[in-house]
């Protein structure tokens, strides 16, 4: 695989995402328009009222007297520059708040998804190799129960067990603010704070990957080329490593990309419960405080993150599947 091939492939995949991003821009604009009250209403409310003429002047200043499509054009031009407007709750540009919160969410996402993916794939493969045995039944049952447990309920149960009853893990926040840890102590503190949120977020997706991987391995194990490899005299371990795993992983990798946005959505509940200062918690607060600019900013930023992650999984898929010629 040559570098230029990879680059042109990457470029094509990115170009494909353009119409999607434009649609999302239009979508958030429509949502803003549908929401009761506009920027000027918020501004005037902030000032404690103003006369009609002043309000009209403000409207003109913000371009709200223009035809809708002109407003849409301006809105999109601003979004492209990552200008999401002003937050009247935080009295700051929305973008500034978003950048502040992004790190926490990405960290939570990264750890949860990598754990869910690796453990799910591993357990799924084991369950499939011992299909219909006791091990398989145990793993599959566990998967079903994780799948059926809502993350907020799981969070509460973990808090009840590990914080209230056992007192092992901290209940909320990203670190112990009063302790002023530095260096490794700080890292360990953060890790301790992230254990429960990560577990709460990853278990449900772990069960997804587990079930898909199990089905996928069972399917691939039935294919002709596995029979060929058996007829060559290959043992079970060799079959699994060289012939089954890579082919069975393909649909799971596809799901990894598709699921990322769902996991990002799931972080709203988990971040809120554990008081983690990330985008999810911010989204919840924006709804409560009716900070629509902030909410749309979050939607757009999340969409961009999802597009990037999908792009990366596409590259990974192309790397895994030799049938995709990167021409």
């Amino acid at each position, binding site marked *: 695989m040559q570098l230029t091939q990879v680059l042109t492939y990457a470029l*094509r995949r990115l170009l494909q995402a353009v119409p999607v991003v434009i649609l999302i821009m239009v979508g958030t604009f429509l949502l803003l328009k549908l929401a009761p009250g506009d920027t000027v209403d918020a501004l005037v409310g902030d000032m404690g009222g103003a006369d009609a003429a002043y309000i009209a002047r403000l409207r003109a200043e913000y371009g709200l007297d223009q035809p809708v499509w002109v407003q849409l054009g301006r809105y999109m031009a601003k979004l492209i520059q990552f200008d999401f407007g002003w937050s009247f709750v935080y009295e700051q540009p929305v973008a500034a708040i978003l950048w502040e919160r992004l790190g926490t969410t990405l960290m939570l996402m990264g750890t949860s998804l990598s754990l869910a993916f690796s453990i799910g794939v591993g357990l799924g493969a084991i369950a499939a190799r011992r299909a219909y045995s006791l091990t398989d039944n145990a793993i599959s049952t566990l998967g079903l129960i994780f799948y059926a447990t809502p993350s907020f309920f799981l969070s509460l149960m973990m808090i009840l067990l590990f914080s209230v009853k056992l007192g092992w893990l901290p209940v909320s926040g990203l670190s112990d603010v009063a302790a002023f840890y530095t260096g490794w102590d700080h890292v360990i503190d953060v890790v301790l704070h992230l254990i429960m949120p990560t577990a709460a977020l990853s278990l449900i997706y772990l069960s997804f990957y587990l079930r898909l991987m199990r089905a996928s391995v069972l399917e691939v194990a039935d294919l002709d*080329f596995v*029979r060929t490899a058996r007829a060559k005299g*290959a043992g079970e371990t060799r079959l699994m490593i060289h*012939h089954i795993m890579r082919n069975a992983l393909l649909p799971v990798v596809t799901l990894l990309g598709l699921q990322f946005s769902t996991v990002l959505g799931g972080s709203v509940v988990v971040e809120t419960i554990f008081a983690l200062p990330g985008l999810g918690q911010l989204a919840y607060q924006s709804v409560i405080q009716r900070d629509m600019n902030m909410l749309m900013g979050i939607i757009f930023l999340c969409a961009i993150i999802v597009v990037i992650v999908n792009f990366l999984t596409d590259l990974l898929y192309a790397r895994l599947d*030799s*049938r995709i*010629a990167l021409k």
Partner: protein
Amino acid sequence: MTDPVLDIRDLKIALPKGSDRPFALDGLNLSVNPGEIVCLVGESGSGKSLTAGAIMRLLPEPHVRVAEGSIRFEGQDLLALSEREMKQIRGDRIAQIFQEPMTALNPQKTVGWQIDEVLRLHTGLGRKARRARVLELLDLVHIPDPRSVYHAYPHQVSGGQRQRVMIAMALACEPKLIIADEPTTALDVTTQLQILKLIRELQEKEGAGILFITHDFGVVAEIADRVVVLSKGEMVEQGTAAEVLNRPKHPYTRALIGAIPALVPPRPRDFRDAPVVLRAEGLVKTFAARGSLISGKRAPVTAVDNLSFTLRRGETLGVVGESGSGKTTVSRIVTRLLESDCGAVEVDGTDLLACSPRELREMRRHIQMVFQDPMASLNPRKRVEDLIAQGPIVHGADPKAARARARELLELVELSPAAATRYPHEFSGGQRQRIGIARALAMEPKVIVADEPVSALDVSVQAQVLKLLADLRDRLDLSVLFVTHDLRVAAQLCDRVIVMQKGRIVETGVTAELFAAPSHPYTQQLLASIPGRGWTPPDLATDAA
């Protein structure tokens, strides 16, 4: 006399409870000597592939298992070996070649890696020595440019080459026994002949015994030293190739051989005065460069290039070619299931391609189709009577009358009218194809386009359906455009034949004349590739029926 490499005694393979019969294989006796090709012949469901699984000890146990008997390989009882000992034998001293060269190779590994794997598993050779051996093997099976194929993935080489790769893989450790399970069934006739020649040539060079599993007596005539015939798990006959092919004793073998279409075309009939019912003029179909977003752009393919022909009333015109010749595209274009790029298709004087969607739906009653796959072409959720009556009802017939007519049509295609209320999956392949024919006839069309109507059927069923088609054609004065890859089938039914290659007509003529004296080199090659062309099946017509 030398000892046989493979000696199977009283082999019984048990099926799970609730199957249609208790034993998939019931008492098989068979031996293969070194340097001998033994053909195991049977129709689908005869248990022939399970025999291969039993020898390799790769049956889907415990559902399907060996119940009784012994399998001796070089005097050693394979059934008594541990899985570990068996692993050392597989691929080393017994090798297997499978039917589908596409799916039998791992899509994610290069060809070289997959051949190399056999050497890695069974020899102590170093990396360099193995690579040299793999290249030598690729050369042995006559793959041009072994070096580039070594690094290619399976999807990057053609079907015939993939089968050569499988053969190279089988030969890697110079096995004493090769099991070839329908190795040429998925290939075109010309490729099939090349692969059969290759197997013969290599076998003479290497001296291995070959157990060759097939359903095709043409292939048997081409390659077998000895023949074993299976019917529903029972061995009905065995003997030398000459004996079984020319003097079959068992009624089943006689019926099978009697069902093989003879390569003798019918006497030419004269259609010069009959009116033209279907005229195709300058048809072109190019499949555009598919800008599939993942796989990237591909070059445009011209599937049909400037095709013209006429079909007269009562005539059967064959369209013959290998895969990629565009013959299936022809059947789709003349029925306008696929839009032609240009040209005209006149049905009874009206240009189908110029019709508006409404006119087209009206015109469709005049040109009906019988499809290749009798399972896929019947909507699984409709009853048989509804399937047959659907066309007339769409065209305004009274539903009750149409269903009554459907029952009559079932009788016409020799099915019981009681079939009317059943669903398609309850029928066998041949019965489904009869339903498909009845559906086409229900419209009382001027032209019937038959796209490989018998290629998915076993040979005995094939003969029955062909006979039915010929009968109906003569009785109802049907005009048929008959698309097929099988020259034997074409010879049976077609008055005239068009030979296609890569989208173009290379030759056309009255069947008898064209078969007797083909003028185009491609036609000559096609005819020369028909398996068993040197063997004329004995005339068993008297007791076949």
